[in-house]
């Protein structure tokens, strides 16, 4: 989970942000402006400043916001001069837009605002529907509104070409003033409030944001055309309201609430994808007459409000279908404002003391949350002051989350005007000090003169205060002899209870208070007057860009000094712990000890005899013979262990056939893979050995509970790993793969894996699971491994191992982090047209189910469809997916003449059926050796493979080329990637004219990419000194095929098309790296990976691995099988056949790290003389 920020404005109009990973408010740089209002979204923040102007802050990013301007040059042929600019009077403009209706000169295209800049000059687009055009980019037609073709024909009378130019939004990381149009009628008065939301109504590529504003005269305005690629929008348009508006709030989805001068709320109805402005208003009365609403804030399915008397209210029953909700529910606390952010989390600003509160315990099932918790974060500049007092810091800190921010009792102290001036008559009870903990500067300001600090100290040194105090003793490291427990302590007598909560008496409004906890925080003010000015008093807060995951630990509520441990541990460079002297010493001494104590005494008898350990259990087994069904089996794992820890294990499976006892067994040292099979209903896993891999029929076993399955998997995989002596971090040259369930597997290459004469058959490769959930993984031989999740999140490998369901001893205890992934489950609603009622859900008897999967063969209703496995949980409701291929109408329908047919997004006379896709998001949380590379989401990634010939000398800091395609199709080049910093530092954006799908970089810096329109491109002049290269060369696709993926090894280039054909690029030479033609290699290929050892033609090695479909097994065809190309001869560069390995159900493989060359009989001298290709 990458950090996100909470935005807030203090009473002086200064803007601060607070990161979810941090604990200090950071002042927003643009210091001249003072702000009144802010409203944040994930990519930007809108605000109204003291000059009543609207400002927009777009955060910096490695990926620019760029928009394409296009204009067409049109020409007509005449017999005199050929094609020329002279057109017929009835023709379009010589320079026009795509329709030809608008005159559009190159010079006439202006930047929309001063916040944009041109990226380059105009140039001609030579790409025509994925194919390169002839020079000049002209396309030809008979007449103007017609179909254009690439080739000039005898009847081509007109031609046109497209000029393109990109503009970039440049005002990033600054407050950019939104230009107000000159017409004073349009904007009669300044704005007083504004709100941004609505980003969940449309998904990318539309990606619209709804920006609403209220003017001083009480009118409501909507900003047109705001989206991520057009952050400023275009113009304000007035939306009529039945009353005078004072404040407005737009939720992330379709909720829009407005407060009226009279105290009611207006709710906008009819907001949807096609009508972001909504259609009508409804009035919601305030909770009580005469107690009007002063402030509202809307989330996805909640609305919070504040009334005149400062009370906070929660609106029950709010959702898309009923935006007004049902009734008000009074909440504790008094606030000047509340703000609902992402995930319906809530923040508020307390009335008197102006502290920002966070609502704790807001979950999808409990949207109103549990308690208000004060954010005690200090300003960034303050924390350096607290360094010397760190050792005194609070025993309370140990209680982590249990430390309530003490200050919860504060809001009820209504007599406290401002705590800095507040007199403190009674200081003895800890409760009274509680306010201090909320704001350390507040307490420090008063401590010297009030004597409050003395009280703090006395409380702190007197641990007899509560019975649990003794347990806090270690915290007070400055006092060596605090409360030690008697030496011989029977365990039952240790009182380890948390300090009991002191009864609170100042908690009028708040049910929950912990007096004692404040103890821990008060010593802050002890001897450290900060000398900084007054505490931060807040005026406004916006959580629209702040993602607080349910259950995540925030560090906002305790004051700590020093670098937070989690920040330290998140650094990916080799942690000092691994290389620390103490660790080395322990390793070394243990080795010496073993030598000293055992070396000369090995002939001694062992005190404990060797024994066989048998673990037995009851599982279910998917029967090998027909009828295939789950049968109950007893299993026994017999392990023989020598005293040196060597293992030998056999798994016995006992079953009954016709009341006859039978069994079979599996030697664990022959097992090649243990794969969790995450089915909807059962906790099962599959066990492969070479024989079963060839049969495509693993041993499938199911356990009664997830825990049982994990225990068995952990035990079995540990036995496998030990018997193969495989453990710890995979070697840098390991082969990585991903199953269709998102499980990550890794295999250690043996030297003869790629040896030509004595190839190790693929089915004997041993695969072990790494934790985490990914859709693809790419590696290179220097240990840099990146993965991409189903939700397109980029992940970098941390060097840990296992995690996820492979827990226990096979898991490293460092470098394992939480990982989550989100994917959408799609079902289809199908309808047939009949003359009487139009489209209905009544189909013909022969039709598919009216609710089905994509194929129509399976019935899938909203109610019956479950997440793909028990690990996944729903995180959204069903919604119509408009992004399906082929397009949809406004309600998401796609039309066709009959069911298994091609669908289009508009209705014609011939269309008798229609369907629409409903999607629902589900989420999985697991753990694994992966860290997120925020914030750019990726579609593909490729790391430069390094052959054994690559120079080794430059060391671990040498940069490694890594290219990627963002989920939006941008081409990116990662800078700063090295063995020491595998995550790299920043993205370099490479300009392209169309969105891309796939990328691959070869060992000699040959970058190939495939665009979404199926065409291939070669990037010229990429080198270590010029990581971005210079320009793109368009490579025509194989005839009538759209390419989908490309993989480049040492020298060779392979590509896949959308029909599963694998193509080899012929004629590639160092001087002509683009090659000359595509040569067909194979069909039924889903994914290709070319390794660094592909100089096969001369060396007899040829490293092309694929994921293949339709592989024959004993029980039918299997999809998704790992295969290696074999039979490559100098005369047969494309190879002859496939060697089949593990599968089906595999989705991805990367052999690009495997530069393990087989030792060959050829003398190394001869080898060295071979010229290197690049």
């Amino acid at each position: 989970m990458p950090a996100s920020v909470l935005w807030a404005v203090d009473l002086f109009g200064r803007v601060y942000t607070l990161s979810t990973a941090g604990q200090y408010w950071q002042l927003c740089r643009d210091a001249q402006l003072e702000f009144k209002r802010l409203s944040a979204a994930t990519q930007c923040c809108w605000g109204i400043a003291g000059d009543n102007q609207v400002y927009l802050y777009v955060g910096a990013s490695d990926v620019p916001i760029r928009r394409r301007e296009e204009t067409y040059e049109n020409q007509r042929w005449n017999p005199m001069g050929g094609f020329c600019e002279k057109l017929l009077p009835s023709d379009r403009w010589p320079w026009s837009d795509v329709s030809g209706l608008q005159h559009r000169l190159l010079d006439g295209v202006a930047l929309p605002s001063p916040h944009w800049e041109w990226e380059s000059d105009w140039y001609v687009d030579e790409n025509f529907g994925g194919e390169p055009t002839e020079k000049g980019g002209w396309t030809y037609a008979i007449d103007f509104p017609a179909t254009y073709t690439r080739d000039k024909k005898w009847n081509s009378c007109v031609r046109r070409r497209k000029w393109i130019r990109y503009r970039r939004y440049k005002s990033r990381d600054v407050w950019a003033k939104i230009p107000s149009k000159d017409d004073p009628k349009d904007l009669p008065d300044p704005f007083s409030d504004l709100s941004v939301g609505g980003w969940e109504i449309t998904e990318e590529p539309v990606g619209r944001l709804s920006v609403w504003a209220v003017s001083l005269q009480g009118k409501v305005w909507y900003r047109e055309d705001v989206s991520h690629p057009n952050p400023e929008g275009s113009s304000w348009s007035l939306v009529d309201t039945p009353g005078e508006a004072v404040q407005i709030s737009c939720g992330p989805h379709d909720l829009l609430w407005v407060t009226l001068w009279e105290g009611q709320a207006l709710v906008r109805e009819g907001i949807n994808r096609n009508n972001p402005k909504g259609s009508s208003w409804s009035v919601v009365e305030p909770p009580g007459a005469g107690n009007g609403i002063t402030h509202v804030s809307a989330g996805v399915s909640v609305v919070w409000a504040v009334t005149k008397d400062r009370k906070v209210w929660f609106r029950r029953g709010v959702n898309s279908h009923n935006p007004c909700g049902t009734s008000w529910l009074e909440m504790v606390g008094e606030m000047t404002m509340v703000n609902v952010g992402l995930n319906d989390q809530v923040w508020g600003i307390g009335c008197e003391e102006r502290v920002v509160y966070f609502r704790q315990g807001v979950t999808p099932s409990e949207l109103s949350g549990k308690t208000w918790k004060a954010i005690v974060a200090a300003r960034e500049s303050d924390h350096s002051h607290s360094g010397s007092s760190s050792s005194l810091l609070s025993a309370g800190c140990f209680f982590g989350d249990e430390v309530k921010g003490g200050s919860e009792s504060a809001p009820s102290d209504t007599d406290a005007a401002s705590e800095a001036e507040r007199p403190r008559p009674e200081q003895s009870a800890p409760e009274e000090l509680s306010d201090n903990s909320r704001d350390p500067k507040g307490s420090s300001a008063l401590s010297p003169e009030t004597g409050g600090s003395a009280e703090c100290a006395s409380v702190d040194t007197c641990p007899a205060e509560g019975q649990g105090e003794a347990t806090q003793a270690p915290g007070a490291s400055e006092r060596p002899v605090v409360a030690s427990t008697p030496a011989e302590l029977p365990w039952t007598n240790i009182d380890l209870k948390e300090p009991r909560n002191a009864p609170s008496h100042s908690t009028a409004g708040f049910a929950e208070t912990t007096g004692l906890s404040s103890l821990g925080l008060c010593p802050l003010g002890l001897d450290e007057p900060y000398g900084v000015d007054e505490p931060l008093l807040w005026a406004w807060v916006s959580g629209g860009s702040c993602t607080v995951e349910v259950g995540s630990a925030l560090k906002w509520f305790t004051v700590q000094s020093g670098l937070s441990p989690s920040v330290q541990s998140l650094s990916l460079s080799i942690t000092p712990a691994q290389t620390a002297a103490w660790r080395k010493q322990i390793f070394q001494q243990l080795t010496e000890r073993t030598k000293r104590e055992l070396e000369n005494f090995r002939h001694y008898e062992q005190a404990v005899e060797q024994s066989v350990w048998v673990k037995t259990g009851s599982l279910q087994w998917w029967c090998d013979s027909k009828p295939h069904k789950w049968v109950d089996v007893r299993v026994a794992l017999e392990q023989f262990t020598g005293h040196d820890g060597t293992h030998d294990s056999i798994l016995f499976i006992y079953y009954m056939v016709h009341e006859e006892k039978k069994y079979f067994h599996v030697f664990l040292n022959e097992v090649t893979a243990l794969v969790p099979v995450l089915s909807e209903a059962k906790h099962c896993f599959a066990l492969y050995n070479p024989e079963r891999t060839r049969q495509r029929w693993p041993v499938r076993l199911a356990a009664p509970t997830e825990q049982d399955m994990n225990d068995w998997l952990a035990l079995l995989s540990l036995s496998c790993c030990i018997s193969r002596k495989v453990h710890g971090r995979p070697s840098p040259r390991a082969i990585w793969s991903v199953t269709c369930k998102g499980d990550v597997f890794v295999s250690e290459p043996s030297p003869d894996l790629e040896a030509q004469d004595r190839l190790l058959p693929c089915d004997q490769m041993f695969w072990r699971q790494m934790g985490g959930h990914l859709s693809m993984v790419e590696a290179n031989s220097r240990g840099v491994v990146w993965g991409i999740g189903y939700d397109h999140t980029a992940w970098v490998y941390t060097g840990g191992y296992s995690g996820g369901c492979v827990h226990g001893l096979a898991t490293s205890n460092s470098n394992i982090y939480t990982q989550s992934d989100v994917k959408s489950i799609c079902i289809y609603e199908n309808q047939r047209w009949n003359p009487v009622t139009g489209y209905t859900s009544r189909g013909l008897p022969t039709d598919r189910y009216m609710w089905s999967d994509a194929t129509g063969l399976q019935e899938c209703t909203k109610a019956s469809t479950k997440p793909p496995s028990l690990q996944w949980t729903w995180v959204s409701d069903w919604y119509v997916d408009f992004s399906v291929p082929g397009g949809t109408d406004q309600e998401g329908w796609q039309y066709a003449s009959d069911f298994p047919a091609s669908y289009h997004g508009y209705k014609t006379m011939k269309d008798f059926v229609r369907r629409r896709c409903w999607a629902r998001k589900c989420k999985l949380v697991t753990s694994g050796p992966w860290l997120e590379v925020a914030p750019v989401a990726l579609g593909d990634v490729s790391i430069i493979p390094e052959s054994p010939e690559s120079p080794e000398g430059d060391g671990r800091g040498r940069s490694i080329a890594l290219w990627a395609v963002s989920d939006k199709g941008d081409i990116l080049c990662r800078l700063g990637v090295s063995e020491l910093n595998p995550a790299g530092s920043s993205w370099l954006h490479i300009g392209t004219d169309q969105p891309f799908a796939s990328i691959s970089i070869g060992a000699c810096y040959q970058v190939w990419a495939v665009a979404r329109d199926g065409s291939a491109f070669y990037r010229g002049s990429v080198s270590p000194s010029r990581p971005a290269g210079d320009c793109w060369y368009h490579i025509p696709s194989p005839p009538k095929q759209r390419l989908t993926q490309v993989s480049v090894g040492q020298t060779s280039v392979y590509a896949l098309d959308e029909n599963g054909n694998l193509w080899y690029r012929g004629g590639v030479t160092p001087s002509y790296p683009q090659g000359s033609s595509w040569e067909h290699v194979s069909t039924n290929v889903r994914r290709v990976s070319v390794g660094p050892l592909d100089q096969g033609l001369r060396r007899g090695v040829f490293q092309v691995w694929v994921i293949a479909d339709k592989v024959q097994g004993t029980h039918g065809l299997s999809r998704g099988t790992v295969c290696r190309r074999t039979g490559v001869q100098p005369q047969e560069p494309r190879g002859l056949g496939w060697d089949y390995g593990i599968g089906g159900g595999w989705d991805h493989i990367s052999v690009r790290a495997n530069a393990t060359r087989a030792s060959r009989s050829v003398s190394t001298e001869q080898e060295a003389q071979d010229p290197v290709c690049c």
Partner: protein
Amino acid sequence: MTDDKDVLRDVWFGRIPTCFTLYQDEITEREAEPYYLLLPRVSYLTLVTDKVKKHFQKVMRQEDISEIWFEYEGTPLKWHYPIGLLFDLLASSSALPWNIIVHFKSFPEKDLLHCPSKDAIEAHFMSCMKEADALKHKSQVINEMQKKDHKQLWMGLQNDRFDQFWAINRKLMEYPAEENGFRYIPFRIYQTTTERPFIQKLFRPVAADGQLHTLGDLLREVCPSAIAPEDGGKKNQVMIHGIEPMLETPLQWLSEHLSYPDNFLHISIIPQPID
């Protein structure tokens, strides 16, 4: 050896070559040969000496046999201390094999607990485990375990099965991700020079400022004499499992990797041998 997991294995498979000799005053029918054995460091004397008992009983008359006990250089050996601890504390500077005297008479009641059966060892072992988990997790982990898990821990120790034991024990070594360690570190510090059997106090793995406490921090806090001897000249060794970890070693790491099976860090403070 580069992996932390190997430390667990090395600790578990630590062995002390031992020579058992029958006490000279025991009455035998024929001469008793010494008995040589590799003792697991992490186990308990009475748990792994069935063979020794049988060996010496063969040469003795039934009526001369009462409860077995062991002695090293005049010190009766407490069976309820792990073997490795006994060795480190009493014999680490002497030559191997470790010479242990076997007694069958005059049980030193004031020094030793009786060990009537293996059940007594199991009871002691499990109570140590529970105490350790009380310190580490407020007993939450051990209490959530099933009876069979407890049994598996014990059987793992008894049968010297590393995997069997650690399959369960790893759960006791976990801690919440948001914390940086256990609540308290279960440890006991033993010194031969004092009357007190051992020192045990509450000590956190992480300091208030988030810094990890080290072995040195612990000793300075609870046993300052160990690292700063009063007389200045004599130095002490701080020994766990026969090795001397550096004082900079984080305590949490030690607790996870160098604890005995009872989940305690048994730390021996012994005078530096003069050589």
